[in-house]
Every structure is written in C-alpha cells, then in structure tokens.
C-alpha cells in the first residue's frame, strides 16, 4: 500500500498477515458443488475471524474500517494465496449498492447473512440480447398487489448455479420502449428499469448451469416464469433502478476489486518461468518483462489513487473505466506472455511443464481473457471515457 499507513494500519496488517499465514487453505477452484461448499466454509471462517467486509459499518457487523484497511486486507489476502472468494458479489457489489440505495430494513435483512456467508448472491444483469447494451434488457416484472411478477431470462450469471439469491434488473414499464432507441444514453431505455432482489428458491425460478470454456461450472442462465417477488425486495425506486445499477457497476470496476499484489505475484511467477526455461538472460524477454512490470507499477499507483479518493469520501465515477482497462488488459497480456515463454510446454497442463503450478497459470490465463469482457467490455470502457471523460460527441 502506498498511502501513508498509520500505526493502526500497520498493526492491522500484521494481525491479518499472521492470521492468514496460519489459516489460508488450499482449495480447488469453486467449479463443483463440493468445491463451492469448501469455499463457503472457508469464508465463514474468515467471517468468524472478523476479516469479512471490514469496511462495513459496525452496526452491520463490519469493523467500520476505512478503505485503506480494507485494501490492506485484500493485499495480504493475495500475498497469502487466499482462494477466490465466492461471496464477492454480495460483499463487494450488492452491499455498497444497499448502503447507497437500500432501506434500513433491507440492510438489516440481507447484510448479516452476506457477511456470514450464510447466503450467496449472484448478479442478474446480462441477458441473451442485452449485454453491453444493458438497458435494452427485456426481463419484465408487473405489479400484482404487493408483488412483482417476473418473467424472462438472465445469462452469464457467475456462481448462479450455487447461489441463493440474485440481484437483478427487470423492466417494469416502458415495455414497448422503441428498440430503435439504441443510443447508449437515450432517456427512454433507462427509465422503467427496476433493481430487485430475488430468492432463487422461489417458485418459477430455473437455473441451468453453463460450463465455461476452461471447464469450470457454476456459471449459469436463470429463467423466471411468473416468479412472485415481494415489493419490499425492490432496491431503490420502481422504474428508477438505473442509477442503482450504476452504483453496482462502479463498485465492480473499482481498483480494490483487483488488488495490485496479485499482479506483483504474477510477475514474479513470470520471472520464474523465464528462469525455468533459461530465458532470463535474453534481452528481448527481459525488456518485455520490464515493460509488464512498468504496467504493474502504474496499476499499483492507480489503485492507490483510487483508495485515496474513496478514503477522502470521493468517488471515481467514469474514471473507474481507466482502472478497469488497466487491470484487465494487464492481466490478459501478462498471462499470455507466460504461455509464450513456456514455448512448446505452453500446451501442457501437467507437471512436465517447468512451472510450479502450470494448470493454475492456464486457468488464470483463461479467466483473464474474460476480464476484458465481464464488468463491461474494454470497448464499452473506451466508449465511456471518450464520451463522458473526454466529452467527444455522439454519433
């Protein structure tokens, strides 16, 4: 961490480091029901030790810690080789959304279970015909008494196959909003969307797993047929869910979501690969690794600036797109160079390949390929920067 640390921060770091060193388990990726359950148990342990969602206010079970403390923990977690966390959609995306737009009752109802890893949440934004063009979503919800009745389909739902709840965007009015209105910020499409929490055990919900190209399961599509959702599960106002969704997306593109320690670790692995294949004295290889290191460093500074902005009570706004482009494209290029260095071993997944965890490297390589797609594609981030930061004109 770059921002000047107080003695409390340093003490916390030491505490977290010591605890993690003793407790971090070695888990398989959460791509099967059994593995997923192991992840959930681990995260319960994390919670019991008081390390889950440190930055939440104390009244919701957090430590009321500042964002710097939270960032320190994420760094230490990576350094300790902590497994991917399956609660992130709840802790990192829904929670900030609830803090900004939820009611007190909603926070009391959901946050403690999120924190304790008792309920796992998934994110239901994307649809088959509404990905980048999110506002053209068609899953609809009609008011019937005190319920919304939901019909439609979500897709690419991470952890959807194992989750208990989904926070989703549904269309509640403007049903016949002209599809021709394809301008990215046209007012019509964005009105009439509602942000709602749906229990995946409700009648009429069907979850169909989708296997990812790297063989992992857990990804899914989710179908809703006359699913009744109590109106008090709407977050924000009916028909005015767009700003609520924007809060979620901003949280998703934030730096703390991608701790720079991760890339520092990966770069060290890259150096190990270069050594293992005898290319550590090759000038071209050294030049390219140094180039990647420069990007890791730049990202570290960007992440530190993000933490400082948030710590000062500010928000990143559209600037988060810079962060997202930096981390996603960095990881894509970093793992790809590792495979290039492995040469003929680059195809091999077993320990014939001269790398400590070659299967892990491949797995990270493929997931990095998705990083430029999920949380808003690179193209969409560039559109946002061009239009909203550089104020270039609309087509």
């Amino acid at each position, binding site marked *: 961490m770059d921002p000047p640390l107080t003695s409390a921060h340093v003490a916390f770091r030491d505490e977290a480091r010591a605890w993690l060193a003793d407790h971090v388990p070695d888990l398989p990726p959460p791509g099967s029901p059994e593995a997923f359950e192991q992840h959930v148990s681990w995260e319960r342990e994390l919670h019991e030790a008081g390390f889950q969602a440190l930055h939440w206010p104390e009244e919701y079970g957090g430590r009321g810690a500042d964002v710097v403390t939270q960032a320190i923990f994420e760094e230490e977690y990576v350094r300790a080789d902590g497994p991917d966390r399956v609660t992130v959609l709840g802790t990192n995306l829904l929670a900030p959304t609830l803090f900004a737009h939820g009611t007190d009752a909603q926070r009391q109802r959901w946050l403690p279970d999120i924190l304790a890893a008792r309920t796992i949440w998934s994110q239901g934004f994307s649809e088959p015909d509404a990905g980048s063009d999110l506002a053209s979503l068609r899953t609809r919800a009609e008011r019937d008494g005190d319920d919304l009745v939901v019909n439609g389909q979500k897709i690419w739902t991470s952890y959807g196959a194992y989750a208990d709840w989904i926070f989703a965007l549904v269309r509640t009015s403007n049903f016949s909003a002209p599809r021709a209105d394809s301008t990215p910020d046209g007012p019509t499409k964005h009105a009439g969307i509602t942000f709602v929490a749906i229990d995946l055990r409700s009648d009429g919900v069907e979850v169909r797993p989708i296997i990812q190209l790297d063989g992992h399961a857990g990804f899914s599509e989710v179908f809703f047929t006359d699913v009744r959702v109590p109106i008090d599960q709407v977050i924000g106002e009916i028909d005015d869910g767009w700003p609520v969704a924007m809060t979620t997306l901003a949280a998703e593109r934030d730096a703390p979501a991608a701790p720079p320690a991760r890339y520092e670790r990966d770069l060290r692995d890259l150096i190990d690969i270069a050594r293992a294949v005898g290319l550590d004295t090759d000038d071209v290889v050294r030049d390219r690794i140094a180039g990647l290191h*420069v990007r890791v460093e*730049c990202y570290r500074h*960007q992440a530190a*600036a993000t933490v400082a902005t948030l710590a000062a009570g500010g928000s990143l706004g559209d*600037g988060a797109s810079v962060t997202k482009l930096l981390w996603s494209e960095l990881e894509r290029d970093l793992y790809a160079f590792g495979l290039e260095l492995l040469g003929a071993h680059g195809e091999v997944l077993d320990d014939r390949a001269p790398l400590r965890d070659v299967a892990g490297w491949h797995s990270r390589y493929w997931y990095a390929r998705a990083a430029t797609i999920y949380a808003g594609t690179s193209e969409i*981030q560039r559109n946002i920067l*061009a239009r909203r930061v550089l104020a270039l004109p609309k087509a």
Partner: protein
Amino acid sequence: MFPTEEQHALREMARDLFAAASPPKRLRALWDGEDRGRDVWKRLADAGLTGLTVPQEHGGGGGGFREVVLVLGEAGYAALPEPLLETVAVGVPLLTEIARLAEETPGGAWAHGWLERIAAGDAIVTVQLGGAPYVVDADVADLLLTEIEGSLFALTDFGAEPVVTEDRARRLFDAHAIVDSRSAVTHRPAILEPARDRGAVGTAALQTGIARRLLDTTVEYARTRQQFGQPIGAFQAVQHQLADVHVALTAAGGAVWHAAGAIDDDGPDRAHAAAVAKAAANDAASLANRVALQLHGGIGFTWEHDLHLWLKRGLALQQAYGSAREHRRRIAADLFDEESR
C-alpha cells in the same frame, strides 16, 4: 497522495504564466533563429519558478520534487523552451548538495552564491550527466555542471558549438567541443545518481505535459472537424484511440507522481521509480504523438499548423535522460537480480 491546495495553485499559476509568456508565436520565432533573451526567464524568476527548489535561506521557495513535476508538466504543456528542467530539477539540487558538503569540498561556499543568483533569475544552469553527447541550452547557460568520469565539474567559461536539431526551439550543443578550464567541484559520485533520476523524472513530467497538450488539442479538433456529416470525434475508431491516450497518460501520471514522492523522501525505490516513470511516460507520450498526428489528418502534417511543435518536442525528449529501452534494462536488472540484492 494528491496534490495539495497550494500545489494546485502553483500548477495553475505556472500554466497561465507559460501560456502568456511563451505562446506558439514565440516558439516559431525561436525556430526562425531568434535569440531567446532573458525576458521570459525574468518573468519565471519573478513568479518564483527559477528559485522553486532553492532552499529558503538562499532566497528560494524551498519546494520539493512534487512541485517540480507539477510545474514541468505545465512547461511541457506549453512547450516552454527555457531550461527549467536543467536549472530547477537537476542543477539546483546538485548545487544544494554541494553546498551541504561544504566542509569537505572547497566549492561549497561558492555554491551558495549560485543558488542565490538562480533564485533571483540572474543565472541559468545547464547540465550534462552520464556521458550525454549533447548539452541543452549551453548558449544561454551561465553555469555548466558536467559529469566526467564520476566527478562533477562546474564550468563558467565554456565555448559551445551548436548542433542542428529537429526541434529548433530546443537547442543542443556538442559536449565534446566544450572548451573549459576545469576544476572538479566534487568527486562524490553518490550525488550524481540522484541527479540522473531527477533528470529522468523531470523529463517524464515534461513528456506527460506535452502528451496532455496533444490529447487536448486533438480532442478539440475531433469535436469540430466534420466528415460524413458529423464531427469525426463521433466515430468510435477515433474515440477509442483518444481513450487509449487518456488511459496511458493517467497511468504514466501516477508513475511520475510516485517517483517525485520517492525523490522527495529519498525512498529506497527512488532509482527504480524513476526508471518506471520515464519508461511509462515515454510510452504514453509516443502513443499521444502517433494518435495526435493521425487524427489531425493532412492539416497536422503541415508546417503552418502548430501541432508539430509539440510532436517534435515530444520526440526529442524520448531520448533525454535515457530511452524507454534503457530504463527497462535497468528495471530488468532490478527484477532479475532481486535475489542478489
């Protein structure tokens, strides 16, 4: 972490001053061979900029390197042709260090005098470090600090032979042709390494300023130039190139700011941070350079248009205080020889 209010104000002041004191018209006059004179330098001195880093007891502002990079960023933005980098970012800290070592080096007391003259705007410094073959602005400099085989020499009486340069407002002189009456002011190589880092980071700051100017100019052009019935800035292929420049510049800006902090704090990663900053700024600046000319189309390729004044300054600074490749070489040595450190 962020610039403070005062640092912000300093930057704004520098921006306005540079824009007023050295508009493109003046750059072009210099290109046509006009003498620089001391008017602009005097204005910089009056605003406290020449003495920015001079310790307060010698009549300066006592500013640190963070202030330096903010001011140099604006100097790049204006393509200011005065040797602020050489004087303020490199020369003054060297002289200050020499003064600090006064007990051991006879030159100490003498350095105080120079610091006072610099703060007052009466002296311009240029430097030649690390065997650089050319010296910038030797014609206007009163003092040349030059590194020869690990020792630093201070020359006041030197002849300089100009070389023909691409950026005619950035004047270079053949270092080998310098005739001198040399007397070493210090034999401590330890003060030279930080000086080189300051040069690299200062150059990186100039480059980010130049690149920001190129980006702003090009964004402005893309908003107004119409083709196919709409501004070219509405085309996504154009938008994405500009967005990439913005991303690269933001990233490089963070690296420069961090390196400035490492210099101020004399942190253990100072040299490494400087190499990262220069490499990142070089990359961002070369992307900005390429995109700016591309998106200006034909008009950008003309002598009349001001764009090339920035394109060429940007190009010139790619090599100053080490190319990206040289800095990456240094970084690779840090990375691969980590265990032996």
